[in-house]
């Protein structure tokens, strides 16, 4: 699949934003932080900013952004519509929770429940995003039970790292939260490894033979494409990355997105002050790069069954 930057940015930015929001609620709910105005203000702005920027960027690639509101109508069947509805609805408790925190300085009682609602809706939004991909049978490697957990995992782990970093900036000692973020990161990347193993080894779902129905004659190969320059389908679905490059990029993403953050976070849990801050900032940077590369690969490595008509032998 063509790795469109707007989609990569959307899925990574909003998901980190939602993750951060969820962790903010958890921090507040567990009393790990008190609703100080400055920390709250910055965190809300960043989390909701990431969410909003992501959502906006996702409308940039629409042919008719001015009609984007229509996308809320088909929640009964469309995961994209559900995602849109969830995203919009999430703003309500999130903003109410933010209001309680920032204006009233409270995150307790009903305010906490509103926060929990925001967290649940955030997770639901991220899960909807995952479902958009997981439900596409045409991209067999995506219709895989790991996709939704992965989306949630990346949201929670990168959100956690962001949150820990913000907290550290505001002078909190990361402590156990760094280890929780490390654990989330480790778990997520463990799932990612499983995902990769799956896409590398799963039997093909469809083949050039089943796509054409000519398998009884023998092996099917494309002789002539219908057009000598790339058409829409070839440009949109035909992005293919060589295995060699994919392997290298996987390593880069693992090192930057998993190894570096996990080590940094484990260390950060032992540290305080500037060293801890440095460690979590390093973790954040690593995760940003790692997740962007991972997300790019998520698209670039996915083969669409339509390409069976354009020379792919199986998907």
């Amino acid at each position, binding site marked *: 699949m063509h790795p469109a930057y707007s989609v990569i940015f959307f899925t990574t930015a909003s998901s980190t934003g939602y993750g951060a929001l969820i962790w903010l609620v958890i921090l507040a709910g567990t009393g790990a932080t008190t609703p100080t105005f400055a920390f709250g203000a910055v965190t809300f702005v960043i989390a909701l900013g990431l969410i909003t920027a992501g959502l906006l960027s996702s409308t940039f690639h629409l*042919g008719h952004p001015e009609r984007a509101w229509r996308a809320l109508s*088909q929640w009964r069947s*469309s995961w994209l519509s559900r995602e849109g509805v969830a995203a919009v609805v999430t703003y309500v408790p999130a903003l109410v929770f933010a209001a309680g925190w920032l204006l009233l300085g409270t995150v307790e009682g009903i305010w906490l429940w509103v926060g929990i609602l925001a967290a649940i809706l955030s997770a639901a939004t991220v899960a909807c995003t995952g479902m958009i991909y997981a439900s596409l049978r*045409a991209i067999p490697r995506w219709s895989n039970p790991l996709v939704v957990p992965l989306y949630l995992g990346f949201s929670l782990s990168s959100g956690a790292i962001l949150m820990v970093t913000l907290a550290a900036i505001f002078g909190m000692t990361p402590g156990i939260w760094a280890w929780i973020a490390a654990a989330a990161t480790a778990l997520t990347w463990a799932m990612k490894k499983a995902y990769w193993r799956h896409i590398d080894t799963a039997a093909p779902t469809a083949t050039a033979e089943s796509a054409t129905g000519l398998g009884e004659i023998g092996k*099917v190969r494309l002789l002539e494409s219908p057009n000598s320059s790339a058409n829409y*389908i070839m440009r949109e679905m035909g992005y293919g990355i060589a295995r060699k490059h994919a392997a290298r990029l996987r390593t880069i993403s693992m090192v930057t997105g998993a190894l570096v953050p996990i080590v940094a976070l484990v260390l950060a849990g032992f540290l305080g002050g500037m060293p801890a801050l440095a460690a979590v900032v390093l973790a954040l940077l690593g995760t940003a790069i790692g997740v962007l590369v991972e997300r790019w690969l998520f698209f670039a490595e996915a083969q669409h069954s339509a390409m069976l008509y354009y020379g792919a032998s199986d998907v």
Partner: protein
Amino acid sequence: MTSLPANPGTKKLGLVIDLDICVGCHACAVNCKEWNTGGHSAPLTDENPYGADPLGVWFNRVHTFEAGDGADGRTVHFPRSCLHCEQPACVTVCPTGASYKRETDGIVLVNAETCIGCKLCSWACPYGAREYDHADGVMKKCTLCIDRIENQNLPEEDRVPACVSTCPASARHFGDLGDPDSAVSRLVEERDGYDLMPEMDMAPVNKYLPPRAPARENPAMQAPALAPETPETEAEDGFLGWVDRMLSR
């Protein structure tokens, strides 16, 4: 309503494509483009039409495959357009309801007035049958020529899709695949018409007729071998005697 029709009618309009006689001439593809660029989905924009990498919207495209190895294999021309699936993911993924399946005849369409151009439906279609028009910012696709098949301004015999009416080899057939007695259904029955990628669970309406194995029972292929070349048949009245024998009959 992006959900599939709750009470689909029995009518399933679609195409049956005979791979046994398609010569890969692209007439159906170009005629489709010609009809549709001025029709319901007008225009079918062409980007960079006279430059490098031209990119145009086409509803029908003709591929050519080889199946099997060496000289024993076959070359098969393979036209491909929307299959008007009974369970089309392109419809259910659509967030706006712009993509829909008609109840009356099962035709899958896109409403250009409400499509936001998110392209998700094109990701969902396993067959690569949807075409994005960058200039219009909306998804387009084979309409099964809705502006022809019931068009009272056209003579009755022209009320078939453009691709069907133009096909020089008569490799394309149009009709109601929901009616087991229709000509197309019977053709599918007789010729073992099949679905593309059944594993995708889209239940395509369009069917493909497989290339026939050379009909061994065909009398033309039942020829007894001629006499082997032996010195005897080459003897004077062996191989020339027949001339006299035949003449003196």
